[in-house]
């Protein structure tokens, strides 16, 4: 598993992914970790299959005891099915995840970690020296879903929003936005169900100062590509698989 430091000013952001040993047939995912002093936050830690390479990669950058907080944007297996294993690796950690998914996520196995239910309007996660805002992104695509915003680093971890389906060898950053569109289009049209929810999110996120938009699949958007993404997404018609219209 490759680890890339994408921000390092007082606190550090790491992106993990592009695992050459990833088993065939499972979707490639990006996992993120922020280290702030003696604490760390792990975001969308991934599925069971990426647990070992992920933990291995983390140990090059942080102590396991440092990881006090986990965040799951939603309940999907590629996001958090590794929970039963993290539960044994980090028995004292907290998991911040949408309140509506608590009864579902617990099916992955959780005996030690504490579930912190995020209310619909979001809450902040504090790592002591840095605060993270949880931005509501419901229905994009899960009916309870959040992004993580770091105001200091100007990074928005956007979960499945901005995701692209491409090979695990692809570059980390979007280089040519227009060329990137075909890799994102179907994902957003098919997985995102609601134009109303989408536009509501776009308006909320336009208010934020974002330098990096970091999705859970595909590439990171930098600078102006963040604005390009918001414009493109706003204009996109989503929720297309309505039987009578689509087929």
């Amino acid at each position, binding site marked *: 598993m490759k680890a890339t430091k994408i921000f390092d000013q007082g606190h550090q952001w790491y992106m993990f992914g592009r695992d050459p040993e990833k088993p065939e047939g499972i979707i490639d995912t990006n996992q993120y970790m922020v280290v702030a002093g003696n604490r760390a936050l792990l975001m969308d830690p991934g599925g069971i299959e990426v647990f070992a390479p992920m933990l291995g990669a983390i140990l090059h950058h942080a102590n396991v005891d440092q990881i006090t907080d986990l965040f799951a944007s939603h309940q999907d297996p590629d996001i958090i099915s590794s929970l039963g294993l993290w539960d*044994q690796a980090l028995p004292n950690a907290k998991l911040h995840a949408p309140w509506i998914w608590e009864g579902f996520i617990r099916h992955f196995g959780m005996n030690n970690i504490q579930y912190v239910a995020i209310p619909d309007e979001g809450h902040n996660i504090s790592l002591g020296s840095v605060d993270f805002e949880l931005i509501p992104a419901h229905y994009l695509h899960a009916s309870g879903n959040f992004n993580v915003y770091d105001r200091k680093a100007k990074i928005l971890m956007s979960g499945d929003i901005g995701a692209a389906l491409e090979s695990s060898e692809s570059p980390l950053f979007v280089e040519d936005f227009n060329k990137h569109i075909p890799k994102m289009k179907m994902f957003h049209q098919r997985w995102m169900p609601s134009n109303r929810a989408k536009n509501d999110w776009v308006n909320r996120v336009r208010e934020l100062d974002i330098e990096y938009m970091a999705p859970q699949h595909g590439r990171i958007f930098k600078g102006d590509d963040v604005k390009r993404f918001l414009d493109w997404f706003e204009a996109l018609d989503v929720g297309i698989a309505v039987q009578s219209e689509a087929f």
Partner: protein
Amino acid sequence: MGYVNLCNVITDFADTTSILYIKQKNLAMTTTHTQQTESKFVALASIAAELYSVMTVAWGVSLAAKNAKVISAQSGEKGRGFQPITEFIDEIAQLAMTGVNEINNEALQLTKIAVTEYRNIDAYHRFDSVREKNSKAQYIKSMTPAMKQVEQNMQLSTKIFKKSLSNLTQLLETMDEYMLSARAIASVSRIVTSNAQEYSNQLKVVADDLDQAASYIKDKLSESYQHLNNVKMQTH
């Protein structure tokens, strides 16, 4: 009359090598089965499934025994020899029902333990691969306490699994002994009923019922052993 007394009555009739026979038969069967061994979980769930129908059969026997009691009471002097035997039959049917319940509970418990054990072994291997592949990682030592815990969990769940597996084996063996007794009682019944004159046919039916039920249950037990052997083959 308790089960111990009952055993004394039937000792002469019981084929004490029967359990060994089943074990040997199963060993032979599992050898041919090795190419397509069912998973541990399927095997354990199958034990409960096999024995589910035993409940109905045992209940039927208990009902027949109660009928037989009525018949032997009606037959007065002629049915006297048959009366204690109807008691035995009812008792053995009750034992079968309780026994099946216990077996089902243990099998269910064992399935749950098997899942926990599976998860703990899986966790151990995943943690171990982290240790193996990242021996030079700066913070690898911070994983030691969790690694130890995972190893302990694995060992503990394996221990509990083996204990429960041996409990289940024990329960199946006891049940098998009950069924041996049942078949012996059926044989005794046939001899006794031949003196019951006009009731002898009705009583013979009860004895045959018992014999059939016992042999049906023995078959089911034998299939359960086969599943259990598959589980044991996958247990190290």
